[in-house]
């Protein structure tokens, strides 16, 4: 009992505070990417829409020749997206704040830090590599196309015209070339250095530096720094991003977090439901058994009671009959005696 009240209260408070701090694992702490995770910084203000990146990608990845050649400018009249024959496209935008001068930008897989495709794939066909590229393995793909539903950037494309061996087609960040120490095909081909390859952290530093140095030239935002948990393909732009085909309503929650809550409930249901249902079954069966037993008892008692009442009534009736009979006999005897007395009285007189 030598502990002072003040020390006791202090230790209790410390204990209480410690209890409220969430444990790292339970709150899905934070995860650090591979230190050498690389990506690309696309400086949209430098893109001239030459489409040499598309051409390089086509060659490096052995993709089929397009309907119209890469130097055909009429292609840019339509807004395009990646498809089963092109991993990347360059689009042209007419922006109100810059009338007359169109703006070009390249789009392809953004190689997210927490890829929705990897999270959604039920055969684990996607993987985020240490190099930073999100790669796809066609040898296990079943073709369910859930990754296409999941990707917030609508990147994965499907070979709908393949009957028996359809694959998903998407930018690979030229992962095989990265392993050989080479640059991605598009980065190497860009004549304006609009594409810069490097470690993600370094690219963010470069982007911040450029924005800081030329605040009138750039919008103060690095697209991909935090969107859907961060992507390895980053963009800086001279006009608001939504005007050049970027979705700005994607939020910062990474895809795996969107479904991990629902998935966490699965083992709880698997664990609790059998016990709950088994318990309900046993309780209703016990209830039925008890009520059946009570009913049987009540019926038996009712039968016994009726029987007893019937016996009682019969006994009473028998006794009454006996009493009546005796009375009748007595009455008859009395009558006979009276008769006899009357007759003897008549004879006597």
């Amino acid at each position, binding site marked *: 009992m030598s502990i002072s009240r003040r020390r006791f209260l202090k230790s209790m408070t410390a204990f209480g505070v410690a209890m409220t701090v969430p444990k790292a694992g339970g709150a899905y702490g934070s*995860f650090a990417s591979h230190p050498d995770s690389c990506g690309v910084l696309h400086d949209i203000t430098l893109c001239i829409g030459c489409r040499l990146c598309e051409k390089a990608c086509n060659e490096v990845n052995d993709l089929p020749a397009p309907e119209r050649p890469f130097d055909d400018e009429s292609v840019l009249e339509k807004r395009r997206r990646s498809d089963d024959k092109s991993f990347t496209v360059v689009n042209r935008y007419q922006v109100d704040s810059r009338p007359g001068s169109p703006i070009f930008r390249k789009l392809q897989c953004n190689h997210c830090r927490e890829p929705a495709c990897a999270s959604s794939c039920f055969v684990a066909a996607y993987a985020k590599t240490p190099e930073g590229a999100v790669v796809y393995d066609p040898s296990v793909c079943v073709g369910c196309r859930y990754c296409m539903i999941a990707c917030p950037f609508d990147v994965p494309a499907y070979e709908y015209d393949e009957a028996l061996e359809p694959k998903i087609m998407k930018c690979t960040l030229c992962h095989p070339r990265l392993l050989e120490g080479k640059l991605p095909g598009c980065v190497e081909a860009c004549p304006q250095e609009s594409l810069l390859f490097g470690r993600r952290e370094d690219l963010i530093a470069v982007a911040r530096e450029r924005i800081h140095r030329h605040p009138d030239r750039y919008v103060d935002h690095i697209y991909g720094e935090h969107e859907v948990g961060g992507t390895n393909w980053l963009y800086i732009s001279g006009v608001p991003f939504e005007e050049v085909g970027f979705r700005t309503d994607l939020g910062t929650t990474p895809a795996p977090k969107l479904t991990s809550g629902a998935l966490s409930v699965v083992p709880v249901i698997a664990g609790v439901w059998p016990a709950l249902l088994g318990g309900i079954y046993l309780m209703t069966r016990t209830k039925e058994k008890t009520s059946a037993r009570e009913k049987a008892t009540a019926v038996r008692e009712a039968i016994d009671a009726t029987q007893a009442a019937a016996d009682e009534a019969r006994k009473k009736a028998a006794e009454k009959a006996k009493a009546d009979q005796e009375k009748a006999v007595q009455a008859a005897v009395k009558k006979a005696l009276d008769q006899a007395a009357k007759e003897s009285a008549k004879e006597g007189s």
Partner: protein
Amino acid sequence: MSEGFHSLQEFLHHTKGVLYLLSVAYLIGFVFFWRYLHDREREDD
């Protein structure tokens, strides 16, 4: 607390895998749990 996991995706891939195996083991165990309970009742009946 990252234990070599470089992303939430990697972490979840590991933990959910373990949880599925545990859940299946539990459900199989439940069958034996139930049968053990029921066998006794059949004796009572």
